[in-house]
C-alpha cells in the first residue's frame, strides 16, 4: 500500500492539478444544483485520500456515472462516500484503492507523459484507460463503490440531497399512494385483464 505522503510528495504538480480539478467539480456541482445547498460540498473534508488521490478517484467515478444533462457521481458526492468508507466499513479495501490508483497513475504517465494525471485527460482518453482495467478488482471495487455512493443514504457521504435516488426515480418518501406505475392504472388493467384487480 502507498501511504498518503508517498503519493503526494513526489507529485506536487499533480496534486495541484488535482485540487484544481476537484474545486472545479465542486463549483460545477454548485452551479448546477442551486437549491441543494452548494456550500456544504466545499466544507466536506477528506478523511482518507490526499487531495491528489481524491482528484483521480473523482475523475474515475465521473466516468462510471458521468454528469451530462443530469447529475452524476460527481454531483452526488461519491468521492466523499468512498473517502469516508475507506476509513470506516470498507477499511480493508484501502490497499486495493491505493495500489489501483498508483498503477493507473503509472499507466497514464506511460501513455500520456509524466506530467499527465488521469484527471487531466480528456473524457475519451479517460474511458480508454478505464477500458484497459475494467476487468481488474480495483475497477470492480470503484464501480461498486460508485453505485453504492450514488444510491446509499446521504449519511454515508454520497447521494447528496438524494441525487442518486431522484435520478433513478426512487422517491424520497415514507409512504406512497397508488397508482404507482403504468400497470396500476385501472384503464390499463381493463385493457389487459378485462377487469381491475
Amino acid at each position, binding site marked *: 500500500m502507498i501511504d498518503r505522503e508517498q503519493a503526494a510528495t513526489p507529485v506536487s504538480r499533480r496534486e495541484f492539478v488535482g485540487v484544481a480539478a476537484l474545486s472545479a467539480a465542486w463549483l460545477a456541482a454548485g452551479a448546477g444544483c442551486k437549491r441543494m445547498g452548494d456550500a456544504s460540498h466545499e466544507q466536506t473534508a477528506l478523511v482518507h485520500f490526499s487531495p491528489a488521490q481524491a482528484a483521480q478517484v473523482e475523475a474515475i467515478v465521473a466516468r462510471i456515472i458521468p454528469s451530462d444533462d443530469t447529475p452524476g457521481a460527481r454531483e452526488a458526492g461519491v468521492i466523499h462516500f468512498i473517502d469516508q468508507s475507506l476509513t470506516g466499513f470498507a477499511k480493508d479495501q484501502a490497499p486495493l484503492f491505493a495500489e489501483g490508483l498508483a498503477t493507473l497513475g503509472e499507466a497514464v504517465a506511460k501513455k500520456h507523459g509524466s506530467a499527465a494525471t488521469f484527471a487531466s485527460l480528456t473524457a475519451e482518453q479517460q474511458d480508454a484507460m478505464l477500458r484497459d482495467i475494467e476487468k481488474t478488482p480495483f475497477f470492480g471495487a470503484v464501480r461498486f463503490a460508485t453505485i453504492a455512493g450514488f444510491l*446509499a443514504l446521504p449519511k454515508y457521504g454520497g447521494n447528496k440531497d438524494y441525487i442518486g435516488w431522484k435520478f433513478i426515480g426512487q422517491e424520497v418518501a415514507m409512504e406512497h399512494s397508488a397508482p404507482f406505475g403504468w400497470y*396500476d392504472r385501472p384503464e390499463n388493467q381493463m385493457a389487459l385483464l378485462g377487469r381491475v384487480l
Partner: protein
Amino acid sequence: MQMPMGRYTLDAKGPTYPTDTPVDFVIIGSGIAGGSVARELTREGFSVVLLEQGRKVAPADMEHDELGAFMWPRWTNDPAVSPQTYRKTSADKPEQRNFANYARAVGGTTLHFTGNFWRFRPIDFNEKTMRGGVPGAALEDWPITYEELEPYYTAVEYAVGVSGEVGNDPREPFRSKPFPLPPLAVHGPGVILEIGARKLGWASKAAPMAILSREYKGRQPCHNCGFCLAFPCEWGAKSGANWTMVPEALASGKCELRSDSYVRKIQTDDAGRVTGVVYFNAQKQEVVQQAKAVVLCANGAETPRLLLNSKSNRFPDGLANSSGMVGKHLMTNGNVVSTAEFEHEVAAHKGPVVTRITQEHYELPKELNLIGGGGFDVRMSVPGLIWTLGMPETGPMWGSGFKQRMRPWFNNSVEALGHTTQLPQATNTVELDPELKDAWGVPAMRITFKEHEHDLRLFQFFKERGRELLTAAGATAVHSNDIPDTPGSAVHLLGTARMGNDPQTSVVDKYHRAHDVKNLFIVDGSSFVTSGRGQPTMTIQALAFRAADHMAEFARKGEI
C-alpha cells in the same frame, strides 16, 4: 425523512423474576416461534423469561438504509462476532463465511421478513406416503396432519391479522374461517403476475401476507413505503413478532424480556432434567436462570448449535441427541429467480413487496418424476441500490450507456421468484466447528450443505416456469442464471431437530417435547420434517401456537 410512526411497545415494563428461583418457562429466542410461545403461555398465566441474544430495534433505528441492511449486519448475525464455517461436502475444507443468515434482534427474523404467510397444504405433511421416497433423501411424513394444524393456522391469522383472499383454486385446502383482513391492494408486480398467469391458464390469487391491509388491533395498515424485505417496518404494519407476539406477551404482565442475553448452555441435572440456562448478559457476564422447563426457539441453525454446545456427562453427544439427529437434515428452500424488463413503468419499489401469487405448481404431475413443488410471486425484492447492482450484463456496465440503463432498469423491471421444496438430506448439517469460537468463546457452527440432484431438477423446472410467466406477461427481456449446486447462503433454516414419533430417528415428539428430556421443548424451523413449498414462517408460528397449547396442558396436569 425518517419518521417513526408505529407505537413502540417493546419497552412495556414487565415483571423482574429472580434468577435463582425457577420460572415456569424460560424461552430462548424471541422470534416468531419464541414470541408466539411466550404470548400463548403468558395468556395461560405462566411465568416466562424470554431471552433474546440480539437487541431491541426501536422505530427510530428502522431506517431505509440499504447499505446498512445488506452490506453489514445492523441487526443480523455478524460474522465478526458470530462467525460460522461452511463447506459443500464433508470432503471439502470448511471456509469461514456466513451461510445461515438470521436476525439477531427482538422479533427474530420476522423483524425484517417479507411477510409471505402461506399455509402448508395436506401434501406437505405426508408427501412420502403420497409420492414415495427419493434415493439419497431422508424424506419422512410428519407425525401431524394438516387437519391437526388447521385450527392453529386460523388462530395465527386472527392473532396477527393476515391479509388475503380465499382463491378460486379448488386444490386449496380446507380452512375453517376466511381471512380476517381483505387482501393488500395489488400493484404493478402483482398485475404483471396476473397478466402472465391469465395467459398461461395458471391459478392465481391475492398473496396471504402478514402485512395489515386495514388497521388491526391498534396497528396501522401498510403505508406502501416499499421497504419490506431486509427492513423492519417502522409503521408497525408488518406483523413480525416485534410488533405482535412479544408486545402482547409483555402486556400480559407475566413475561420478562431480556434482550442482549445470549444463551451458551442449557443446564441439566443428574436425573436428565433441564434446570435452567446459562447466558451472557450485555456486559458478557454469565447469568444462570433457573427454570421448571425450557423452550428452545433459536432458529434452525442456532437451535442445534446450542443443543450440541449443551453436552454433559449424561448427554455426551449433545442435549436431546440420543438419536444423533440434532443438526441433521438442514433445509433452506429453493429460491429460483428470473428478472425481466418491461416496456411500461412498473414502479415496483412502491407498495408491499408481494401482492399476488400463483401456486399452479404446488404439486406436479407424476410424469415429471418430481416430488414437491412451489409457487411464484413477482416482485422487486430490494430497492434501488441492490437492484442497480444486480443489473444484467446485457449492455454497458459503466459510462453514459450504463447511466442511461439505470432509470429504466429500476422502474421497468421485476423478478419472478419461485419458492420451492428442498429435500432433507442427512449429509446437510449444522455441527460445531472443531476450532472456531465466537466472541464469547462458544464453539461456532459449521455448516455442510449441497443441493440434492432432485432439488436441482426441481429448481430448473421452476426457472423455466418463471421465464414462461414473465414472457407471457409481456417482458421485453428475461434474465436468469444457471442453477448452482449450493445456495451459498440461506435465510430459511429448517429441519435440524426434526419432529417424529420414533425417538431413534427424530429429536422431538409431535408435541415438540424432546424425546430425551421431559421438560425441554424445541419449537422453530428446526422441527420441520420436510421443507414445505418455500414459505415457512406461517407454519412455524402455527406450530408454536399448537406446541404452547400442549405445554400449558402438560404443565397444568403436572406432566412436565
